């Protein structure tokens, strides 16, 4: 149900909307913050994982006898140390440790725990794995062909009626839409149809996966880990290892980036299994190449988009076909690509078909608005070309077709209050949109959508006897949530922000919390914090009432004080939070607030980006000159963090658009598993990114908050592509728009002109 069914979102604030210093800033810049690899334990061993050199191979035999005989080696684990499963964790387990087949280059096949890194590495070299190399496929289009090697035996495509009987690499078919597309296109006067491909990209978090596992002889365990969800880690690891949830305590470290990539387990069950077998703590830290090889990049895609419009700019019909590969396991975000592709627009006739396809690549993981950026790249590229053919301003063209409250989304439901039109108007009125451009410079516009989610959340708020407050959260802080939560608690309690300290607790200290994903934490944990604070306020008022000897409902809370409510309540001097908590030991004991719930009604978010670029015709290099983002945040709790989320998503999107790509050789091996060969944007690549925060309140949150962490990565691929096209007149059918590809297109155009 709505969080505050009876209330409209609060609109007047004292703390919310200000920009206090982040509470984790000093620790992070001084090195005091403890990340995943920063934990140590007495007697600790070092874990290392042996990975498949093959893209696809049957594992005939693993002989670890020589490794086990090496002095200093304390344990070796393989698939035999994990019981096979046929439930929802079956694929997670197969990805954690290969069973009968290695399914991608880098797939874990065995692991060792040894007394040093050197011994562990030596031991890996002594493990003999007998492989039967199998045919592989890494391209999504190739994987869908009838003669492609079938990666997972017996995989029958879901979502097809009547059901298929022959196994293939297509895990599922999705279809969304409404209206009559054929009739719509018959009415269209201008139609653009294009095909596109995008390559897999990695979230590029700077901190590799790392953990310290410690399983005792009594079967209880502790795990220190960098993750976006330590309850998820606890539940998955305990189930994979056959432990009771209550016997595994997981603590989330400070996190050096996640962006969706740390929403599952990779090394954690292995470290726990090694620790249990060795009887010693085991630290396992991925190298950078392991992160690229064996964690979850995005899907690569192959797409077709067709849009038809009338000459007045009204879209008559739209159609798309999306093929997303998600590695050697079902679960690519093809469905989200299909659902988000046309969400910005009010379409009467629309049809989207999408396929979830398997390839011999690592299992994809979420990456900010999973599935949406690729679809938006295709749709917004076609929108740019179609708008230009119609002779319309790109903003006006989008505005004419913009989704509004009451628009039926392509995936079915009707939108409530949304702020897409506001983003279009905001960028059109911004000075960046009017800045003149020189030769080889161009401007690109693109829009994007993301659903946003809520989820299970549990928060406790403990008031100390000095009146300061500890706020216990179960959602790892990946984007500044501790500051935002503290601000919302301070807002409710009526005390200064610096008197609330927010801490992410371990899994034994709070009830279950969903992973920090889906742009959910400021929305969901924020709402739980507000309600926990209100719970504490009720108790504070009750203590004041008892102290004054008046009914509890005769006390109100204002500006951090309990006050008698009206003349009939008597003439009592207001009691501050500090005064009430100071006497708590005599008035009933400690005072705490608590709230657990399942947050829903997250409220969708829209954004429009405008980017100016300059293309060097001699090298094909694209330089981003200026970048503007307008996005609906519902209510910006800490505007600096909101701006940071906008800017971070755009920066990652620019990397995806211009340089980042997984490159596979013909042998199915990843060619560029490192930051030297996989180029993410650095500070000198990016201008200051201008931001416009729009606030169309989300009725599902007490303050109107919407998630902001994901939408900002949806438009950049198309915005940059459109800008390059505007600058030098070439439009590529794939990202990245890397210098060699742009140069080749420019040279091809010159050659064609010369002929």
């Amino acid at each position, binding site marked *: 149900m709505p969080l505050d069914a009876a209330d409209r979102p609060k609109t007047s604030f004292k703390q919310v909307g200000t920009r206090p210093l982040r509470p984790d800033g000093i620790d992070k810049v001084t090195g005091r913050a403890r990340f995943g690899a920063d934990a140590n334990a007495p007697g600790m061993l070092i874990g290392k994982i042996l990975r498949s050199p093959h893209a696809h191979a049957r594992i005939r035999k693993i002989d670890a006898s020589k490794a086990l005989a090496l002095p200093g080696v304390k344990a070796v684990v393989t698939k035999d140390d994990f019981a096979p499963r046929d439930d*929802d964790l079956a694929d997670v387990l197969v990805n954690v440790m290969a069973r009968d087949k290695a399914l991608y280059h880098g797939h874990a096949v065995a692991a060792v725990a040894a007394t040093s890194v050197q011994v562990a590495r030596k031991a890996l070299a002594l493990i003999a794995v007998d492989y039967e190399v199998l045919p592989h496929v890494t391209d999504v289009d190739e994987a869908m062909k009838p003669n492609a090697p079938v990666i997972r035996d017996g995989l029958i495509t879901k979502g097809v009626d009547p059901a298929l009987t022959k196994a293939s690499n297509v895990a599922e078919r999705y279809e969304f839409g409404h209206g009559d597309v054929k009739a719509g296109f018959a009415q269209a006067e201008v139609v653009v149809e294009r095909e596109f491909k995008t390559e897999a990209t990695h979230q590029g978090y700077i901190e590799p996966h790392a953990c310290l596992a410690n399983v005792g002889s009594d079967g209880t365990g502790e795990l220190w880990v960098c993750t976006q969800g330590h309850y998820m880690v606890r539940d998955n690891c305990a189930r994979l290892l056959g432990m009771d949830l209550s016997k595994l305590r997981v603590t989330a470290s400070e996190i050096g980036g996640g962006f*969706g990539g740390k929403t599952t387990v990779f090394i954690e069950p292995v470290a726990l299994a090694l620790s249990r077998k060795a009887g010693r703590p085991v630290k396992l830290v991925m190298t950078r190449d392991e992160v690229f090889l064996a964690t979850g990049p995005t899907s690569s895609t192959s797409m077709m988009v067709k849009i038809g419009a009338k000459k007045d700019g009204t879209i008559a019909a739209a159609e798309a076909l999306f093929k997303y590969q998600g590695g050697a396991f079902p679960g690519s975000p093809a469905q989200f690509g299909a659902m988000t592709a046309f969400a910005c627009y009010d379409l009467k006739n629309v049809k989207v078909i999408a396929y979830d396809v398997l390839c011999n690549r690592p299992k994809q993981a979420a990456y900010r608005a999973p599935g949406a950026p690729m679809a938006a790249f295709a749709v917004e590229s076609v929108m740019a070309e179609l708008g230009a053919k119609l002779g319309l301003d790109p903003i006006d063209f989008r505005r004419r077709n913009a989704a509004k409250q009451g628009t039926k989304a392509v995936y079915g439901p009707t939108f409530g209050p949304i702020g897409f039109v506001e983003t279009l108007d905001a960028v059109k009125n911004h000075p960046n949109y009017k800045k003149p451009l020189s030769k080889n410079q161009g401007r690109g516009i693109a829009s994007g959508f993301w659903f946003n989610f809520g989820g299970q959340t549990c928060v406790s708020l403990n008031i100390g006897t000095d009146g300061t407050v500890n706020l216990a959260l179960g959602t790892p802080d990946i984007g500044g949530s501790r500051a935002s939560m503290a601000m919302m608690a301070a807002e409710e309690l009526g005390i200064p922000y610096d008197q609330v300290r927010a801490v992410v607790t371990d899994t034994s200290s709070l009830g279950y919390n969903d992973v920090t*994903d*889906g742009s*959910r934490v400021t929305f969901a944990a924020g709402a739980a914090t507000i309600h926990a604070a209100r719970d504490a306020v009720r108790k504070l008022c009750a203590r004041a009432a008892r102290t004054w000897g008046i009914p509890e409902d005769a006390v109100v809370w204002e500006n951090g004080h309990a006050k008698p409510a009206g003349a009939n309540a008597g003439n009592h001097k207001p009691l501050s939070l500090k005064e009430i908590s100071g006497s708590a030991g005599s008035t009933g004991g400690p005072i705490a607030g608590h709230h657990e719930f399942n947050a829903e009604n997250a409220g969708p978010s829209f954004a429009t980006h405008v980017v100016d670029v300059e293309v060097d015709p001699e090298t094909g290099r694209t330089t981003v000159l200026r970048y503007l983002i307008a996005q609906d945040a519902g209510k910006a709790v800490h505007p600096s963090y909101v701006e940071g989320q906008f800017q971070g998503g755009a920066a990652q999107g620019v990397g995806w658009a211009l340089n980042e790509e997984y490159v596979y050789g013909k042998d199915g091996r990843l060619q560029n598993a490192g930051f030297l060969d996989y180029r993410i944007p650095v500070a000198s690549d990016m201008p200051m990114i201008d931001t416009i925060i729009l606030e169309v309140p989300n009725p599902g949150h007490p303050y109107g908050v919407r998630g902001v962490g994901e939408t900002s990565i949806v438009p950049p691929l198309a915005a940059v592509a459109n800008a390059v096209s505007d600058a030098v007149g070439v439009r590529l059918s794939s990202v990245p728009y890397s210098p060699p590809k742009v140069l080749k297109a420019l040279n091809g155009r010159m050659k064609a002109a010369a002929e």
Partner: protein
Amino acid sequence: MVQVRIGGPLASMAGGLTRFELEASNIREILTGLGEACPRLKPVLEQGVTVAIDGELYRNAWFQPVKPDSEIYILPRMAGG
């Protein structure tokens, strides 16, 4: 009675049916009724789906009430990054 529509790939599991009329006052009753009306959907419903009520998405809210005139869509389970 409420009108329930099935979106996306779930329709193929419902034998191509996309609309159901059910006696239900909340999400749990909708899911139970759908599972009875279409047994092929039952495993999917038990694994988790997203229910859109009047444009708002609900992923885990059995007791969320619905009204006879509510717009209700059953969508595949959704999660973010």
